[in-house]
């Protein structure tokens, strides 16, 4: 239980173990058998399970989504991958109108056990069409389950749950997480969908964060600690079903809410969390909830413009300090030595 593996390895292991346990599982997507294997999250699977179970596909995201839906309805459990959520926009019709609805509209006669993995992210000049974080588009749709695992542990446990789930699950994975390691059990295990995770307990403020922003929130919490502020960090993990209880419990304890999303605020996932908090925990709130997100324009490509686009730990810390009417000076906004802001870490050298 003290084995550390990366997020990508954890995803790969989840697929390997479910492929192994259940003949009906297949893995399909552009570049799945590619030596680089979707940021290494599918590496080696085709070699192990053969091209009938782990396969590439034509550049036909729309039809191929329909194909996995039809395959799922007739007994398979397909896991499909898109290298960018942006590419999946071509398949929205199948996801929103079909995958999300066949179970309901046929009164339970069909099941659509598909998992659609989509990569979101930022940095390194991905620009307006390769770095969107479009989770709220999926999270709005009843019939879908929508998850954003943050840690390698949850990546494995939630992907196994998703593959075993009888419903369409959209999994959004942040590119900057693939290399990050965590303690991950070797045997198969399940992390339930629809449960948030308290990553750090605190009493002064609740930070609900999504995906990569949880790392920024944890780092902000450390900074805040040095200033005597005790932040609770809740990693949302699932957008639908939404774990209202964990969020509300935390707010009831702290009386303050910050929501940190990986994208812009307007009509985004952060609005739902803020609305939920006020609708159901109004009397606990000691101040207005605050959302943290990128500005209301597409992501520019040049680092000179993009560096300012993404809020980070110091921005979260600043928002908390402001909320508590504490001085906001002396926060460190520069990246660590040897790293630029468009890389998750110094070893990351592009090109995607």
């Amino acid at each position, binding site marked *: 239980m003290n084995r550390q593996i990366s997020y990508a390895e954890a995803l790969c292991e989840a697929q390997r173990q479910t492929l192994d346990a259940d003949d009906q599982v297949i893995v399909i997507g552009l570049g799945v058998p590619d030596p680089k294997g979707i940021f290494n999250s599918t590496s080696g699977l085709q070699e192990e399970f053969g091209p009938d179970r782990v396969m590439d596909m034509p550049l036909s995201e729309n039809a191929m989504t*329909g*194909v996995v839906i*039809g395959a799922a309805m007739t007994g*398979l459990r397909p896991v499909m991958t898109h290298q960018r959520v942006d590419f999946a926009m071509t398949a929205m*019709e199948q996801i929103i109108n079909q995958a999300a609805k066949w179970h309901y*509209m*046929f*009164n339970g*006669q069909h099941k659509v056990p598909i998992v659609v993995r989509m990569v979101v992210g930022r940095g390194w000049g991905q620009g307006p069409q390769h770095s969107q974080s479009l989770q709220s588009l999926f999270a709005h749709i009843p019939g879908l389950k929508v998850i954003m695992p943050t840690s390698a542990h949850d990546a494995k446990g939630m992907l196994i749950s998703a593959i075993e789930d009888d419903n369409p699950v959209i999994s959004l994975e942040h590119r900057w997480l693939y290399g990050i390691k965590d303690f991950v059990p070797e045997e198969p295990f399940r992390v339930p969908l629809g449960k948030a995770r308290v990553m750090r307990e605190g009493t002064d403020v609740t930070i609900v964060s999504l995906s990569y922003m949880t790392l920024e929130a944890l780092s902000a919490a450390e900074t805040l600690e040095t200033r005597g502020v005790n932040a609770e960090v809740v990693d949302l993990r699932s957008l639908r079903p939404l774990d209202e209880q964990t969020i509300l419990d935390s707010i009831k304890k702290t009386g303050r809410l910050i929501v940190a999303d990986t994208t812009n605020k307007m009509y985004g996932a952060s609005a739902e969390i803020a609305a939920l908090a006020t609708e159901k925990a109004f009397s606990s709130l000691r101040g207005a909830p605050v959302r943290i997100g990128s500005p209301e324009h597409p992501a520019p490509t040049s680092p000179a413009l993009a560096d300012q686009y993404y809020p980070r730990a110091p921005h979260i810390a600043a928002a908390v300090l402001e909320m508590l009417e504490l001085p906001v000076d002396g926060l460190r906004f520069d990246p660590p030595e040897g790293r630029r802001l468009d890389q998750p870490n110094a070893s990351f050298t592009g090109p995607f």
Partner: protein
Amino acid sequence: MALSPETRIQLFQMQAAIRTAEEAIVRHYHEQEMRCPVHLCIGQEAVSAGACAAVLRSDYAISHHRSHGHYLGKGGNLNAMMAEIYGKATGCSGGKGGSMHLIDLDAGFLGAAPIVGSTIPIGLGAAFSAHLKKEDRVTLVFLGDGAMESGVVHESFNFAVLKKLPVVFVCENNLYSVNSPMHVRQSHVRRLVDIATGHGLPAADGDGNDAEAVYRLTKDATDRARRGDGPSFLEFSTYRWREHCGQNFDHPAGFRDEQEVVSWMERDPISIHRHALIDEKIAHPDELDRIYAAQEALAASAIEFAINSPFPDPNTAADHIYA
């Protein structure tokens, strides 16, 4: 391929079943108790009857907005269809779907959905899973001429050919997409079969008002699929008599040329087939009339079944959101 007399009479019977069901809807639709859009296939029965007769009950079929014929052809339960259109608990989707969402899994009818083009890859997915599981099972994917304009059909053709999937695309070319004639949507230099063959998809066309021709072409195609020789595309020319959606004729309101409508009605697939069976002494007129009348009675009793069925309990509206 010579058809047995039984098959030929079955084809007649199935066309009668579809026609009488649709006519029953026509008679009752104005009562405003079937409270959902209906897309009738009167005039196109030969395709449904012919194509579905060529496959087994264990084979799959999938359809779109205009699915009554495909559903019944494949053996779908008539009472459950009518009840579904009436929004009743006994409907094939428990009232959640309506006319545009028929399903009968026992009969291999996987479902229908009205976003044009979208059920094509879903049906293909069923064929893909049969293929991966090495099941002896063919899938019929019904589509219209309008669907041939959607990108997803092209993506589906490519994947079907690439993986040699056991699927037959059955395209009913009825010359219209809602009220839009072919020439505002597709160039006359483009033939539907050529698009299929362009993808390396074996294709044939035939008379969609001749159930036996439809049967023969579909049988060939499904035989090939069963042999592992992959997918096919079939285009059948036919014609919808009534308005796109609803129970009326639309030529009196000027939507289509009266002459065009009349000339197609003169080529009524059912009476053509009836005459053929009589001329070739396969059946006596009285026998065919009896068959037709029996279907009429079934349709009427299905309507009655639907009317007498209970509505779903409003409290079940939130059932089956998740499996």
